[in-house]
């Protein structure tokens, strides 16, 4: 009988798998340049509509800047939904899920690879959206604390993608409902996160909506980033956001892991892991 791998060997193998899955995502998404152009160019149209509207009703130019940041950040939510949450469904349809389940690596490392690849890919697109937005609409930004911007950005992505891991685990056994669920979660989060509002935590936004929005890491991260890059705020102004994002990660990651293990074991028991075309 083979000896069990050491902790170090096991960790190395899982990191290799995560890296490989990240590489697949990066390679696959950037092989077709028209997709890259579309993913940067098309959101600008929605953003542009809001910027023009806010100008027309006399809001300050910073409202346009808020929409550009919102439009860039919301790309991550779209990525989390379509490339994380429903990913096991696609992998199963392609026959890849069986291969992941037969391989001697943790499924969490595969999800981690997807998350790393997805966030890096989307970061390229988000940067493109911001640069194109600034160029096209000449909106003002004021960054006094770039280090904090970096921290909040990374924490927001980590919280969002751990939420994506949790969804992926929950929807592991889903058939075509995965598609509908992703659709169902898309627009409400666009709305509740305040991506296209000048600000979510403003007196004009109903309190209930603010509370509901605050349950989504995107809302917290987006608000913090807006304060940092538009108002020129320092870390002292957004420390509650940082605490909230860290709390999200600490809760969501272990929850995603447990859920994944549970759903995998349920799938094996009920024989639903390898069923297709449901």
């Amino acid at each position, binding site marked *: 009988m083979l000896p069990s791998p050491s902790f170090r060997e096991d960790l190395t193998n899982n990191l290799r798998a995560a890296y*490989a899955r990240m590489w697949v995502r990066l390679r696959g998404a950037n092989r077709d340049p028209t997709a890259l152009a579309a993913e940067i160019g098309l959101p600008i149209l929605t953003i542009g509509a809001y910027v023009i509207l806010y100008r027309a009703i006399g809001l300050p130019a910073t409202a346009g800047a808020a929409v550009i940041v919102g439009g860039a950040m919301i790309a991550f939510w779209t990525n989390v939904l379509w490339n994380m949450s429903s990913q096991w469904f696609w992998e199963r349809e392609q026959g890849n899920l069986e291969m992941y*389940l037969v391989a*001697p690596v943790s499924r969490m490392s595969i999800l981690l690879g997807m998350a790393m690849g997805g966030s890096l890919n989307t970061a390229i697109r988000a940067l493109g959206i911001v640069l194109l937005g600034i160029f096209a609409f000449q909106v003002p930004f004021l960054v006094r604390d770039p280090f904090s911007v970096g921290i909040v950005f990374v924490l927001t992505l980590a919280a969002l993608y751990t939420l994506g891991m949790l969804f992926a685990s929950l929807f592991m056994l889903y058939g075509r409902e995965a598609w509908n669920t992703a659709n169902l979660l898309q627009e409400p989060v666009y709305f509740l996160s305040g991506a296209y509002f000048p600000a979510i935590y403003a007196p004009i936004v109903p309190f209930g909506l603010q509370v509901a929005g605050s349950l989504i890491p995107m809302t917290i991260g987006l608000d913090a980033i807006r304060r940092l890059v538009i108002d020129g705020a320092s870390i002292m102004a957004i420390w509650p956001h940082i605490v909230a994002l860290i709390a999200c990660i600490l809760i969501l990651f272990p929850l995603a892991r447990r859920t994944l293990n549970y759903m995998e074991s349920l799938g094996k028991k009920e024989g639903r892991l390898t069923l297709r075309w449901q």
Partner: protein
Amino acid sequence: MKRDLSIETKGLRRLFKGIPGKGDVVALDQVGLEVYDDEIFGLLGPNGAGKTTLIKILCTLLLPTQGEALIKGLDVVKQAPQIRRLINLVSGGETPGYGILSVKENLWFFSQLYGLSRDFAKDRIAKLVDQLELQDYLNTRMSKLSTGYKQRLNLARGFVNDPAVLFLDEPTLGLDVLSARHLRTLIQDWIKTGGKTVLLTTHYMAEADQLCDRVGIINRGKILACDTPQRLKTKVAGGATWKIEITPNLSRPESIKSVPGVVGVSETNNIETGVTTLKLVLEDESAMSDLLSRIRENGCKVLNMGKSEPTLEDVYISLVGTGFE
């Protein structure tokens, strides 16, 4: 010489939820199997016989409802992570991988799921590409490969971790004759490297006959017989196996089955020519006169008839009473 057991199942049973009100579906029923090192073992049975269910349990993709399954002495339920280091699975008709990636990139990706270092993976992939004659397609995207080459890539993926136990679920499904032959040769060469085991499912009788050291015949979740192809065929050789061509197409095949002395029959209808080919296993040749009378009663006339060497299909017919349906 006593050989080491590579795969072992004891009283393995698997139920699936059936249509409401109809009860559970028994996919595997008290399956006991022993497969040894250096052996190519074939599971032969029609669609829905339980072959894939058994493979899925052995690959840790499905939990058994009852019983025990061991790979190299490791329990598929309790020691799944250890088992996954020893096995790989290739399903025919499946093309796992990413269409947008090339052959080389896909193989590299799968090698990383088994923790192969960069240099080791590079060497291994080069060897597999050479063995499976994929050199000209190394940088071709998987989505642009033909079915045959996709299947070669799939097989290369199955060998990428040089598993101790390789599960092949209908590996030649959809392959042309040459590709299927190439694949069989490859499997035979690989098993000779020593310390390997192949469990192969197929419904191609000739494939099982040519490739497998031993064959288990499975139907409705039960293993009906298990032995070398030669011994299985010898068991039916005591009777008589016949091939009879009749015309027009037989409308009531069950009437042939009920002739005394007919152990089993399989019929193949050619609608275009109106010819039905019957493969029959008889207890002895005394059943022949009743059989010919029954054919005439069905309004058919005999075009051709002859005794044939028993094949694995005849073994199956003698065990189940019919051919694969």
